[in-house]
C-alpha cells in the first residue's frame, strides 16, 4: 500500500510504496521518513487552492515531454480542444480526466485516466511507429 514520506532535510513529500533513495531537491541520501496522511496534507496545505489554468498546464506538459520519447501534438487546434476538455473536467469532476475516456467512478481506477495518463502501455502507442495517446495529445517523436 502506498504511504507518505517526508525528507527530514528539506520537507519534500513523496507518496509511494518506497521513498526515493536520494532526495531530488536537497540530494541527501536516505533522507525520507514515513509520515501519516494527515501530516503530509498539513505540510502540503489542506486548503485546496485553484487548479492550473491553460497556460500553467501547457507549460507543465511542455516541460514533461522534454526528457521523453514523445512530444505534444503539433496540431494546435486539436491540442486547444483537448486542453479545454481536460481543464473543464478538472473544474467539473475534480481531476484532469481525459476528455476521450469516461470516469468509471472507481477513484483508484479513474486515476489511470488523469492527464497525462500512462499511455506508453496502450495499444495506440506501444509498438506503433506513429504511436499516440488515446486522445492524441502526445505523439511519439519521429
Amino acid at each position, binding site marked *: 500500500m502506498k504511504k507518505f514520506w517526508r525528507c527530514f532535510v528539506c520537507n519534500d513529500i513523496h507518496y509511494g510504496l518506497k521513498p526515493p533513495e536520494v532526495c531530488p531537491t536537497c540530494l541527501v541520501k536516505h533522507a525520507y521518513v514515513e509520515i501519516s496522511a494527515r501530516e503530509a496534507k498539513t505540510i502540503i496545505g489542506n486548503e485546496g487552492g485553484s487548479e492550473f489554468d491553460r497556460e500553467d498546464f501547457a507549460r507543465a506538459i511542455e516541460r514533461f515531454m522534454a526528457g521523453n520519447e514523445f512530444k505534444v501534438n503539433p496540431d494546435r487546434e*486539436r491540442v486547444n*480542444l*483537448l486542453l*479545454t*476538455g*481536460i481543464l*473543464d*473536467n478538472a473544474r*467539473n*469532476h475534480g481531476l484532469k480526466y481525459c*476528455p*476521450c*475516456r*469516461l*470516469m*468509471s*467512478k472507481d477513484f483508484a481506477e479513474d486515476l*489511470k*485516466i488523469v492527464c497525462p495518463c500512462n499511455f506508453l502501455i*496502450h*495499444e495506440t502507442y506501444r509498438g506503433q511507429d506513429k504511436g499516440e495517446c*488515446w*486522445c*492524441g495529445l502526445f505523439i511519439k517523436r519521429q
Partner: protein
Amino acid sequence: MAKLIMFHGRECPHCRAMHPIVDKLEKDAGIAFERLEVWHDEKNAELMRSYKPVIVAKCGGQLRVPTFLNADTKDAVCGEMPYEKLKEWASK
C-alpha cells in the same frame, strides 16, 4: 431497427471526426445513432457506465469515447474509423 448509440465527449477530437461520418450514415444508409454526450450530462454518463462490461471488453479495458453500442445485441466498437467500417459494424 436495432437501437444504436454513439457515446461521445464534447472536447474529444476523435468524436468530432466521427460526427460527419455518422451524419453520412444516417443520410445515405438510413442508419441512425442516438448521440449521447457523456462529460457534460451525468444521465448519459450513467447510461454508458451501465454498459461497462460490454464496452471495456471491446475497448482496451477502458470506457472510451467515441463508443458505438448496439443496445440490442450488446456489441460495441470504439474509436475513430472510416465510414465503411462503421457501416459494416452498424449493419450487422
